[in-house]
């Protein structure tokens, strides 16, 4: 499913050399009001916001605390961003105007797919630390917004757990597309997390749709026979097939989240290896949305504190692996959006009902899909385990069970 799995900018450069990069971002000049609330899409459980360059409306980009700098798709910005190492005079995020924003422009394929953003336009790339590292940044998974600058949390969240952090890493690395060497500041927020009772080391990463684990750790946890599926992921190094399973518990300083989804694969290992080379100590994975989305997350870069405000309710959390056992792919047609079955999970009720790859889906529970986007349609396939959705395919209508694709034993 095209927007399920992103491990965006966790590590972007080849041959990273750690050299104790400064933790100070380029002190950007900005205009606006502190606490600017940017509306965001949270497709794939990462934050997509519109980034305008030099006053020209731009594409959606991912706000990624795992990325040290801005890696932007030159094609998506239609000439406003130059290829290679450079900068833009202004970048506007909501009401906040940033001046002289350093950028790395790539031609497209190396900005790691998805090539299409949730709004249907080209994917603009990712924004990292050198764009927002001077601000307190808040990520509101429930209300779908990113808050730039200090702002009070919503009224209906629980008191914060405050966790101090140090920024790690930084150094120099080779840019994609032979664009030279880039020196970048320390930007990595490394946390100790306990995975099913064992302490591990993680990178805090709002650009990760999953908790990402090293393969060896993933396999040791999966040895109990828990359910797994393979799924496509968009990594910094390109598309990859990953194995996905559910974790019983993930805890940071005693703050526990259950049933978080984790992924592993060869390219995930490479990504973590690069991160290890940069920070100079072992790292076991990336702490992404399955943990973070239970909280209103404030990363106060100037004060070096992470505040986790647990939401009073979890109704905003949609477990993407408790669903009808199909993935869809979008297509555009003159008559409206069209969605076809892209993948059928083995052993699911969907497979038993004979749904096949390539079949067109016309409606879900009586709701026509032609005016809906892929993110909305995908969410309509989710639900509580045991319920059914009525799928109208091009040739028939079937009731299909919602199942947990990643059951724990």
């Amino acid at each position: 499913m095209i927007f399920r799995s992103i491990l965006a900018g966790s590590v972007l450069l080849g041959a990273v050399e750690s050299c104790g990069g400064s933790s100070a971002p380029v002190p950007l000049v900005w205009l606006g009001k502190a606490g600017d609330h940017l509306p965001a899409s949270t497709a794939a459980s990462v934050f997509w916001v519109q980034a305008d360059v030099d006053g020209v409306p731009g594409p959606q980009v991912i706000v990624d605390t795992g990325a040290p700098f801005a890696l932007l798709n030159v094609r998506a910005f239609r000439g406003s961003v130059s290829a290679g190492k450079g900068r833009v005079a202004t970048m506007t995020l909501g009401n906040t105007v940033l001046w002289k924003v350093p950028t790395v422009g790539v031609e497209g394929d190396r900005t790691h797919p998805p090539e299409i953003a949730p709004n249907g336009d080209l994917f603009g790339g990712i924004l990292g630390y050198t764009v927002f590292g001077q601000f307190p940044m808040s990520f509101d998974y429930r209300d779908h917004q990113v808050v730039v600058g200090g702002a009070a949390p919503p009224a209906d969240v629980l008191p914060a757990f405050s966790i101090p952090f140090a920024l790690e890493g930084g150094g120099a690395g080779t840019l994609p597309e032979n664009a030279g060497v880039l020196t970048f500041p320390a930007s990595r927020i490394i946390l100790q997390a306990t995975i099913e009772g064992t302490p591990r080391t993680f990178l805090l990463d709002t650009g990760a749709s999953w908790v990402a684990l090293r393969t060896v750790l993933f396999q040791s946890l999966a040895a109990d026979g828990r359910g797994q599926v393979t799924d496509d992921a968009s990594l910094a190094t390109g598309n990859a097939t990953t194995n996905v399973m559910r974790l019983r518990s993930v805890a940071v300083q005693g703050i526990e989240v259950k049933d978080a989804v984790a992924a592993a694969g060869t390219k995930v290992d490479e990504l973590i290896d690069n991160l290890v080379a940069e920070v100079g100590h072992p790292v076991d994975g990336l702490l992404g949305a399955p943990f973070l989305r239970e909280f209103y997350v404030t990363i106060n870069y100037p004060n070096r504190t992470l505040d986790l405000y647990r939401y009073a309710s979890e109704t905003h959390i949609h477990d993407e692996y408790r669903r009808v056992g199909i993935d869809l792919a979008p297509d555009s047609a003159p008559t409206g959006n069209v969605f076809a079955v892209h993948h059928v999970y083995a052993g699911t009720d969907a497979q038993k009902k004979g749904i096949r790859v390539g079949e067109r889906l016309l409606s879900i529970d009586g709701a026509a899909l032609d005016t809906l986007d892929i993110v909305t349609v995908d969410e309509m396939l989710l639900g509580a385990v045991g319920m059914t959705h009525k799928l109208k395919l091009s040739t028939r209508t079937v009731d299909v069970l919602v199942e947990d694709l990643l059951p724990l034993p």
Partner: protein
Amino acid sequence: MLRLLRTVAPGALVLLAISVARAEADAPAVEAPTPRAADRPGVSMGLRSGWAFPIGSVATDDSLGSNFDGILPIWFDAGYRISPEIYWGGYFQWGVGFISSDVCVAPFTACSGNDARFGVTLQWHVKSAIGAGAWSASFDPWVGFGTGYEIATITLERGADKSHVSYRGFEFASLQLGGDYLGLGSMRIGGFASFSLGEFARTTVSVPTGSTSDPISSPAVHAWLMLGVRGQYDF
């Protein structure tokens, strides 16, 4: 500064008139030429203006020319003529900065800037080097060297929102070359060129949440090449 010149100049003229009167009273049979102020020790004050062209970088990967198209300066000099050849003093320049369209783009509604420089300068007036002659009697070429400090500021606006950034650092050297016309009594006018070499070491950013001052992590050398005119009054 202009007011100061107006205040001082009449007094100087009075002194000059008294000394001329005394000279006439004590005059020997052969009339001696009146020494010009420029030929004796004394205070000098001057004004310059022109156009400064940007060279080099504010910081690594951030050229001065992409920030400023140029500077229109007002440059004030005050110093002392130790001898007809040697002058030393201080200078203060404030220039209107013309912000480059490379960095002043939408959604900014206005961008402005200025550049302030101040320091000390030493001039060697090399009139003796050009020999005697009718034309050289009124022409005073000179070379100068200065050093000081510089603060360049850019202000960005979007409607009522406004933020500033300033860059500051030492001016290592200001190399100057000029020539003055001396045929106006105590006033001299001329043209000059200066090449001031410096490096910004710190930046101060004033944004809606306050001001922060930080060292520039990757400083770079920059220069201003200035061409202009100047006037100086020798007391």
